[in-house]
Structures are given as structure tokens and as C-alpha cells.
């Protein structure tokens, strides 16, 4: 299982959709900071992947800890430019790419006919549902991004990075109450995405 996940994850490097210097990922960051972020990016991906490989059922709590831990490491190294809000937003984006790639690859590996005939395909439907949900959410999020980028950021922070309402509010710069409302709105859209099968 571990080996399998490893190959899947290594493969996912090749289709990584996001470049560290992606401007959308780092709005308004000066170039020298962008470079440092790019370094942190590798760090983030690495620990995120090993985390997923070790504990595929990682709870959101652990994801949050992961993101914070990675921030602390970053802040220690680059005290001068460390901006927690930026960093967490960025980290959420990275988490999204890692998780989505992971789900996509698992999905692909499973669909690739690697299952013994006796397992009878219908049986794996249930597990697949969860993974494809992640993929559908990702797709819905891409669309949402065009209409309301901030709302998409909120989804990344809450859903992908597992940040609390309070922490997410701090990153986005909204009151907790407002953020909660926004999240509630986003949630309806995501739920709709799951049902629709996008």
C-alpha cells in the first residue's frame, strides 16, 4: 500500500498544475519573497505527501497542524519577510494541489484495472465516491474562482487546509462572523457540486 501510494504521489509531480511562482497563488508578493515561498513550497509538498502516504485518513486537525508547523519553520528561517496571512493562504493552495492530485491519481490507479476480477467493480464504488467528491469540489472551485476569488480562497483555507473559522478569518482579513457566513454560502455550492456529480 505504501509503495503504491508512493508511486502515485511521485507520478503526481508530473501533473502538478501549480507553479510556485504562480502569481495567483501569491498575490502582490515582492519577487524576493516569492523565491523564498517557492522554497517553502517544496517543503510543504514534501511533508504533505508523506503525511498523506502515512495516514491516508488524515483528519483535518492534522492538516491544520501541518500547515502551522510548516509556517513556523518558514518564520524561523525568514523572520524578516514572514507574513503569516500570506503564508497560510499559500499553504492552503499547496494543500489543495497535493490532495487533488492524490485523489486524481488514486482514482486513476484504481480505474486502471488493477483490481482483481473477483473484487467485482461495483464494490469499489463507495470508496470512489469520496475521492471523486474531492475532484468534483476542485472543479466547482475552479468555476467559483472566476466569479468570486475570495470565496474560493476561503474554501481552500477551510476545506483543504482545515483551518478553523477563526484562523481563516484572520488570513482573509474578515470578521469571524462574516467569514462564517461566506463559508456557509460556499458550502452550499460545494454540496451542490457533490450531488450534481459536476
Amino acid at each position, binding site marked *: *500500500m505504501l509503495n*503504491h501510494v508512493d508511486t502515485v504521489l511521485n*507520478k503526481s509531480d*508530473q501533473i502538478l498544475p501549480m507553479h510556485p511562482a504562480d502569481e495567483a497563488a501569491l498575490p502582490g508578493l515582492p519577487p524576493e519573497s516569492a523565491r523564498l515561498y517557492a522554497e517553502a513550497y517544496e517543503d510543504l509538498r514534501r511533508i504533505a505527501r508523506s503525511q*498523506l502516504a502515512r495516514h*491516508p*485518513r*488524515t*483528519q*483535518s486537525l492534522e*492538516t491544520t497542524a501541518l500547515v502551522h508547523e510548516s509556517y513556523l519553520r518558514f518564520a524561523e528561517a525568514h523572520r524578516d519577510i514572514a507574513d503569516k496571512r500570506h503564508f497560510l493562504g499559500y499553504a492552503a493552495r499547496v*494543500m489543495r494541489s497535493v490532495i487533488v492530485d492524490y*485523489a*486524481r491519481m*488514486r*482514482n*486513476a490507479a484504481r*480505474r*486502471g*484495472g488493477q483490481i*482483481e*476480477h*473477483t*473484487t*467485482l*467493480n*461495483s*464494490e*469499489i*464504488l*463507495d*470508496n*470512489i*465516491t*469520496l*475521492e*471523486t467528491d*474531492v475532484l468534483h469540489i476542485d472543479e*466547482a472551485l*475552479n*468555476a*467559483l474562482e*472566476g*466569479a*468570486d476569488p475570495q470565496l474560493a480562497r476561503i474554501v481552500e483555507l*477551510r*476545506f*483543504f487546509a*482545515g483551518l478553523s473559522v477563526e484562523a481563516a478569518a484572520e488570513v482573509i482579513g474578515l470578521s469571524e462572523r462574516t467569514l462564517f*457566513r461566506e463559508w456557509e*454560502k460556499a*458550502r*452550499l*455550492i*460545494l*454540496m*451542490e*457540486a457533490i450531488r450534481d*456529480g*459536476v
Partner: protein
Amino acid sequence: MPIHQLEREAYQRLLVLLDEALDQPEADHARWLETLDDADAPLKPYLARLLAQRDQSGKAARLEAGAAAMVPAEELAESTHQPGAVVAGYQLIRVLGQGGMGVVWLARKSANLPPVALKLAAATHMPRSTGERMAREAAILAALNHPHIARLLESGVSEEGVPFLAMEYVDGLALPAHCDVQGLTIEDRLRLFISVLEAVGAAHAALILHRDIKPANILVNKMGEVKLLDFGIAKLIDESGRAGSTRLTQLAGRVLTPDYASPEQIAGQSLTVASDVYSLGVMLFELVTGDRPYRLKRGTAAELEEAILTADTNRPSNSVRAAFAERYGATTSVLKRKLAGDLDTIILKALKKSPGERYHSVLDFRDDLDRHLRGLPVRARPDSFGYAASRFVRRNRFAVSAASAVALALLFGLIAALWQARIAAEEAARANAIKQFLTGLLERNSRLQTNAAAARSKTVREVLIESSEKINTAFSNDKLLREELSRTIGNLLVDVEEAKRGASLLEEAVRLMEAREATRLDLYFETLVALINAYRVGGRGSDALATREKALIAMNARGDKTSLTRAMVLGASLHHFAKDHDREMMLLEEALDIYRNHHADHPGHATTAFALANALRVRGYWKSATPLFAEAVSVFEKTGSKDVMLLAQAHFWRGYGESQMGRPAQALPHMERGIALAEQNSGAASQAVIFLRSLHARTLHRAGRRADAHAEFARLRGPAESRKQSPNDFNLALYQGEAHVAEGEPDKAIAVLSEYGNSLATHGNQFFPNAVSWVTTLALAHALRGDFVASDRTLAKMKEVTALYSADAPTLAAYRFDVSGIHLLRGETEAAVKVWHYGLFTGDVPFKVFFESGAQVWLRLAEAKLVEAGRAGGRSAELNAEALQYSDRGIAFISKFASLDAMPYLSAYAYTVHGRALKANGKVDDGNALLGRAIALMREHHAPGSVWLRQAEKALAR
């Protein structure tokens, strides 16, 4: 329409309205929706749907848990049962498989009944849907009763409340694995596949779509019977012929097995029987080629889905993998020929993107395969015009001679080409005129054909020549038409080896294009390429070179660096006409570069790689040439080139290159494949094949397969009394003589080589190095017998050879080795060393050029030092130490490039020299050990009275 497909403005408005709604108490939502004005009315259903989500607390909880929790581990349902337990009256034997939904056991009801596959639902997080699904599968299976569908035996709920299905247990392999394990021929595979089609057809007749057809679901049992399994996601077809679209079917349709999924499945549209037809087409494709219809770069699911939806399907005949062909025990080209034509057409019809263009039913699909197996014309039609012609020719293949078949095909092809070129309505009349012109010619010729094959074989030429003569008068007032016909017929004339007439027509086409100032068109360059080719085929080197320069200058002016035409101009093999071979190679390299980067799948890629490899080969650069031959082979196979002889040579030289680089054993399979292809093409008795076989026999000997090599020499040369001297027999005699010298039998070598003592100039003129080797091998053989007079007399013949070729023999590695050996036998150590210093032998060029010479130079130097040390007295210690250094390097050189065991003759020699050097330096035990190894090798591979063996034994005794 899903929300994510909304226009941006609409989406933004939707979000604003959603905000507004959320400000209201939940109870008021319905009323609020009614208050929306007309402009927002289209968004109403979306809002209603979104707001209804609020009740879905389960989903909300999942979202709150976060994404990471949504990518679960590969959870397997824990089996709550143990082997031996009895469930629903079945005794469990062992687990066959596990999945999220349950466990499949091998189980049996009683000892006298056959075992069954018992599927038990496990308690999972979705127990209810599991039970539902199993009930549905049971209902579907119960409706099916077909010998090729695994039967449902029983279903229900066990005493402990576990839903179960008992199915026929199929003990066997998936269909493709079965075919490969059994090594089934294409025809056998097709016959099995027809059973699959019948099974799926039966399901369709019962209004059931399988929807997940793939190899894992089609097993072949021990009796060789096909069994279709797993109707787990099958769906009943409703009366409109489409499968109903429920949540489950949507999910399954989109999620499962994209490798075999149809475009409409990927797109999430509703499915018909055509979807199963498509999946079956993918399977059949894989079954006969070993590959999938799409070649993917990254292999991701997204890329595959994209390919299924949009990419052109590869032709099966172009997709045969070498490894697959090997398993099947054939070459790719043989397999390709089997697939090309009707099988291509049948499979491509099943794989059409649009369901309506596929077979309307699985049984139609089955019928066409059946017709193909029985040699009848199939119903599927390829799109091209050429089909009718090729079908006609094939149906009448015994009635129509090969040549007139070609004539027909050429003419049909010509007409088709002109149709396509002149498709515009205002050109139709013109195209018609051409057609009449050509069919007129053809009819006249048919009437002239009274009978004989000889008359028929003239047909192609005559038709084309006649038409070439009439172009100017028939179309005197239409320059464009004259240009086009000149070009087309000119090309065809070159194809039928009327190079001169072809060239003059193509010259006319070029002139006409220049007159209308069309020299910037691609077509102009294509015409120049054709003209270069015509000159080349006609042996008109200087015209070809001049035309190529003209084309290159014009292309440079156009700024053309990467076009296919440029690659074709550069890749025209004019190597043998040109004086400046370095420049020719540079041009070929540039051509190859363009092909690799821009037109990798063009057949020109293969011919150019081959041409460059060949140029390198002729100059002895095997290290560079060998991978290029390999590249040529792989591109040939990918593009399905028809030039079998070129492919044969590419295989062959690729192998021979391995041998030249010190790996004769690895060389043999490649060489043999090349020979097999060449035999198919030209027959075993052809001189081209004998030439290849002579080098093959030489390689057998180098690899230490002495008996095989000698048997082959004898077979190829035939009995002495009926033997005729020829260049090929000269080569064979030489290789045989070399083998005798290597085995330490100079007498036999002299006997064989002397056959050509008086006719060296006549028959040794095919290949310069061979003529040189003949002289040096014979001279060495005489010297080995101590007959230095005869040896000198033989070496004097070298003048004849160098005069014949106006080339320098001492630049050749074989010359150096043999001649330095002769000098050593005469005790002329200085001369023996000097041979290696001659001419080009500076730096390390020959090391790259030829593997053996790299080792030989060090070993010969070591030998020379040993001889010198033997008579030096006071300085002997120093000279012996030098000798050891050299022999050490010789051994190191061999081990660096090859294995010492790979070339027994070279190795035995190396061990002897090194062993002697070790002993001379006081390392008696080490030296004797090596000499012992040399002697053991020689006893195995040498003649009983081998002079080399005697030498080694003497050194051991000393």
C-alpha cells in the same frame, strides 16, 4: 445545467442572491424565491437547489471534516468469516477477492457439487446501498442465461442477515492473458472474441447493458470457454434504447475503467449498446496489437479521457508492439500485415467517436469478424477512396497479375489524389477530364493485353509512359493541369523505375512552377524533393546535388528551419554521390534533428536515421551508428513503413554493431531478425540475404559458436565441386579463413584463402576491408607455419588492393593486428610496434572506431616488450614491467567495453599475453592461473592442434 457552467456574470449574480437568501430565516426561503423578478428568473432553479442543500447534514459534516478525510485509505472490507464456516448453506474455502463492498469466497455446498464464487456483503458504512446493489445484480443475472455468461446460482440473505450472491465459479485467466499464455494466433483470438460478442449480444437482447467491459471481466476457463462476469454495474435499457440515468449509473459511467470507456461514458451522457460496442472495440484492439488505441504521453486519467473524447484513434496495424509480436512468435511486420486492411477497418468502426457511426449492434460487429475470418468482404467501410480498388484487386488476386494490380492501384490512387487536389466545384470538370484521359489509356491497354504475363507486366510502365508523352498535347492550353499531371505522373514513373522519364516530367513541373512564380509554396519544395529523388534513383549524382543546393538556398531564404520538406531535402541520401562526406553527415544530422523534434512519426525519420547510421557504419563509427539503427527500427515499426529491406538492414546492422563493440552474443538475435525479414522479402537464395548470412556466420564464430559457424560457412558456400566464385563466396572464404587462423589452424586457412589467389581483384572488390583482410590473414597464416617467404609474397599483393581502391590499407585495424603479429613472429619488435603508429592512428580514434583494435594494440605492444625483454639481458626487468603494464591495459580495455567471456578468441589471446607478462614479472602463480584459463578456453574453441594452444602450453611449462 450545473452551476459551474454558468456565465461569470450570472454566477456572480447568483452569489449575491444567495447572500440575500441566507439573510432570511429558513422558513421564508420559498416565499423569497417567489419574489425574484423576471431578470433573475433563470437563476431560480439554482437557488432552490442550493438552498435545499441545507438539509443535507451528512454532506455538510463531510465538508467540515475537510478534504484530507475524503481521500481514504484502500480500505478493504474485513472478512467476518473464517474458512470452513458455513454461510447460507455454503462452506467457505478461501477468499478469492475483497472490495469495499464485500468479500468473494470460493465456497461449495457439498463435496459432489462444483465450487461457486460466493459474494458476501460486508457491514460497511453504506450497508443499505450494498444490499440494494447486490439485489439488482442478482435480478440482472437471473435474466441472463447464456453459455458465455457466468451463471447466477442463487441469491438472497443468509440466516445471519448477510446479503449473498452465489455465482458460477470461473477458474481461468482474463481473455488477453489466456491468449498470451496459450500463444494464440490472431485467428484464434478472433474466434474467442466472437464468443465474447455473442455473450454481450445476448445481454443486449435481454435489454441489459454491461457498461464495464474490460479484460478483467472476461475470463476463459480451463476448457477454453469464454465467460463474461460482473454485471455489478450493468443497467437495464429502457424502451428508448438508452440506459436510464440514475445517480449510480452516472457515477459508474463516469468513474469506472476509463481505459475501456466510450466517449459518451466519459462525457457522462446516456448510454446505448454502442457504448458496449466501443469498449469491445478497445478490447479487440488490445487483443490483436498488445497496445491501447491511444498513445499517451503522461498516462494520467485526464489525458486518457481527453484522448477518448478527441484524439484520432491509431490504426491497429500501426500499433503492434515488438514485445507483443515476440510473445506471439512473429515479427511486427508479419502481424501488421495481418491487421492492415479489414481488421483495421472493423476495429476502427467499433471505435468511432460518434455512437451512430459504430456497429449498430454487437451482432453486426460479430458478423463482420466472422466474415473476415471466412475471407469474405466485410461490411464496414473505411472512408478512403482506395478501398474499392484494393478490394477489387484482392478479390481477384489470382486472376489479376501483380503488375496490373499495381497499375490499377496506381491509377485509382492517381485519380483519387487528383480528386482531392481539385475538390473545388469549379475544378470538378477538370478532374473529370483527367479521369477520362487516364481511364482511356487504361482501356486501350487492357484491350492490348491478349494474354501473357509479360504483356501485363508492361502495363504499368506503358500506361504511365504513354500518359507522360501525351500530357503536353492533351492539355496544351492548361498550364496548371500540365504542371500537376507532370508532377504526379513523374513521381509514379520514378516508382516504376523509369527514373529518367520521371525526372524530365518533374523538371517540367518545376519549370512551370517557377514560371508562375510559385517558388515559395510548399508544393514547390515537395516537387524539388521528388526531383532529387528521381535523379538519385537514376544515378544522376551531380544533378541531384545541384538540385538539393538549389532547394536549400531557397529554403534558407524562406527562413524555413523546421519544416518536413526541409527535413526531406536534407535527408535525401546523396551520401554516395558527394565528395564531402562530413558535410553529408552534417546535413543528415540536421534532418534527423528536425524529424526528431517536429515530425517524429514521419517515415522519413526512419530512413534518415538509417542513412546517417549507414554513413557512420561505412566509416567504422559503430558506437554512433548502432543506436541510430535501433532508432530507425523503432520508427519503422511505429510508422508501419513498407520498406522491408530497409527495416531488415536496420535490424541487421544494429546487431552487427553490437558485435563490433564486443557483444557478439547480443548481436545475434537482431541480426537474425534482419535476416528473417530480408528472406521474406527477397528469398533465401538472394545474394543480399547470403551477404547478411555471411556476416552472421562470422559473428557466430566470434561469439564462440564454432560448430554452428562452420556448419553455416559450409552450407552457404555449398559443396566444393559446385561452388562458383563470387564476391559473396569471397567474403565467406575470408571469414572461414579468419576462423581457421583464430582456431590455430593456418593450414586450413591457407587452403581456403588460396582459392582466391588469382581472382582477388575480380571478387574481392566488393568491400575494401575484406580485400585487405584476405591479404593479411593469408600472410599471417603463412607466417604461423614459419613460411616467411610465402608470407612476404602474399603481403606484396596489398599493392593490387590499394591500387584497386586507391585507399590506404594500414589505416585498418585488422591490417595492423595481423601485420604486427607477422612482425612479432619474425622477431621484428620495432616494426611490430611501428605498425600501430601509422597514419591516422593518433589519439584514440581507432578505439572509438573498432572495439577489438583497442584491446589488440595493448596486447601486441605487451607481446613486443616481452620478446624484447627475452633478448635484452640487463634491461629485461624494465621491459618486462612495461609489458605487464600494457597487457594489464589490454585486459582492462576488454572488460571496460565487453565481457571477457563474450569473445573467447580475443579473451584466450589476452589471457595468454597477460599470463606471460605476469610470469615474466615473477608472479608465477597468477601467470600460470591465467595461462590455465587461456588453455581451457582454447581447448573448447580451438582446433586440436592449435598453434595458439601450443604457444600457451609452452608458456605454462616454462
